[in-house]
């Protein structure tokens, strides 16, 4: 049996390198997947432009953040980006409504098939992609300010006397808290308000919703506004936590879609579950378990190798494999959503 202190150290190690990062990343994926799933539920197509919508929303927020910083505005220990966030959301919402008015609306009018919509969204994705690189450039941008840590690994070690340190970064706490608030607000909206119920009704049975006098144009507008809120918040949180790089947001499309599909496309609760499933799988499968096992195993069983299932470079393969497995075994996802 490992000693109690070793178990504690192993747990701290796990929390620091797997649980906290995965909770943070999972919250970001969940917000992204919620946007994808809402658009799918109402507009009935997979929006490939969602990753770049996150990049766009984050970019606008970053530009406003820099402007605020140049004016000497600050949010105390919190990042200035949170002050800029509402403005980033507003600009992104206007952009999405504009796209809908001048692109998607035409295809709704002619009753285009879902696959046509998907291809159209790929076109929108390239435009947004180009726009973001044109405005802010393809390089890494840092915009986080305020306090970086709630407590540092060294402080944790001194305080607890453990050999392993646990760092709690403010971006992690901000991500998790903001995600909880946003998800709670979204569910309250969908479950309790008349407009939210009308959205669910429209998603459930479009013809009957029309027969009930629900205005489809209004539902579509609200969907895009919600997508803008979710995408911008997810994009800014990811940028605060890691950094902002347009190409990375494009890559996020795979884990986000995997999350939405694993949970069940069109099901908000599924998007959240899917986000955490993907995040935990990705982090847990690419984590190096050597040190963790050394704490727990008797000396003669200690591993020589890194004990890593998959190198970090291949982390996207995790989403891909989970996605393929789900599509093969249970195409409707955990919460019985739509089949793609």
């Amino acid at each position, binding site marked *: 049996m490992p000693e109690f202190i070793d178990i504690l150290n192993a747990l701290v190690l796990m929390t620091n390198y797997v649980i906290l990062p995965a909770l943070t990343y999972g919250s970001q994926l969940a917000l992204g997947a919620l946007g994808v799933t809402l658009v799918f539920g109402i507009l009935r197509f997979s929006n490939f432009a969602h990753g770049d919508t996150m990049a766009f929303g984050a970019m606008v927020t970053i530009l406003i953040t820099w402007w605020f910083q140049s004016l000497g505005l600050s949010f105390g220990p919190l990042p200035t980006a949170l002050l800029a966030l509402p403005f980033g959301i507003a600009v992104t919402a206007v952009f999405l409504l504009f796209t809908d008015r001048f692109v998607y609306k035409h295809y709704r009018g002619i009753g285009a098939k879902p696959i046509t919509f998907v291809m159209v969204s790929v076109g929108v994705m390239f435009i947004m992609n180009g726009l973001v690189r044109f405005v802010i450039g393809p390089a890494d941008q840092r915009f986080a300010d305020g306090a970086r840590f709630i407590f540092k690994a060294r402080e944790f070690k001194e305080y607890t006397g453990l050999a392993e340190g646990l760092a709690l970064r403010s971006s992690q706490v901000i991500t998790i808290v903001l995600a909880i608030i946003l998800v709670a607000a979204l569910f309250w909206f969908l479950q309790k308000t*008349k407009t939210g*119920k*009308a959205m*669910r*009704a429209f998603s*459930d*049975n479009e*013809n*009957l*919703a*029309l*027969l*009930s*006098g*629900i205005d489809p144009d209004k539902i579509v507008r609200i969907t895009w506004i919600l997508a803008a809120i979710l995408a911008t918040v997810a994009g800014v949180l990811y940028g605060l936590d890691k950094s902002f790089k347009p190409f990375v947001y494009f890559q996020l499309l795979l884990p986000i879609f995997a999350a939405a599909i694993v949970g069940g496309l069109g099901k908000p609760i599924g998007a959240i579950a899917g986000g955490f499933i993907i995040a935990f799988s990705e982090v847990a499968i690419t984590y190096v378990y050597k040190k963790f096992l050394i704490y727990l195993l008797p000396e003669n069983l200690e591993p020589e190798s890194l004990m890593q299932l998959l190198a970090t470079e291949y982390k996207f393969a995790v989403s891909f494999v989970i996605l393929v497995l789900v599509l093969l075994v249970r195409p409707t996802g955990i919460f019985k959503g739509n089949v793609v």
Partner: protein
Amino acid sequence: MSYLVGKDLCGGYGGPDILKGCDIEVGKGEVVVIVGPNGAGKSTAMKAFLGMLQMTGGSITLGGEDIMSLSPQQRIRAGIGFVPQTHNVFTGMSVEENLEMGAFIRDDDISGTLEEIYQLFPILKEKRLQAAGELSGGQRQQVAVGRAMMTKPSVLMLDEPTAGVSPIVMDELFDRILEVRAKNVAVLMVEQNARQALQIADKGYVLVMGENRFTGTGAELLADDDVRKSFLGG
């Protein structure tokens, strides 16, 4: 004069006319049943009343007012309630949410109407928090009728409300529909179970190829040898 009157209805789906000049009327406090073979245009006639058909001729009045130029949503606001044949509930939403969505166009307090529907269909009150998709066929039809009743319509149109339910459930649904009639609603119903439906009908139409073949009270049609032989299975 009947409350909802369709005269010389002609129209279709862009191709040749499906309705070729049929007349259908229903008065308040009346149950009117449309029967006829498959493809006769019964559902199409309902779409004509709802404004979901390309009309090439005829007229439709509701309480004496011409409603031909109104959109489906406007006709619902004007007092027409409709229960489609299939996909007539929001399966993922609770029974109560289904009823609330039925009342979507209303801005006033709907709690009184909700209570009325629950009195009419007590089982719905019991299952009000359950998803409509989890209910039995007969209970679902009650949700569908209840949803359409939430606008307090003066005309209730039902397309084959008893399709696919057991005879016992059918009898119960017909009882409920008679209770709706008792609220001075005009009930217009398409039915495959022609014999049973005509038994509760004040008036019946036999529609064939988009035209009226026979018209009479329910009892008259049931007693007519030609109708019996051709449409009621002897």
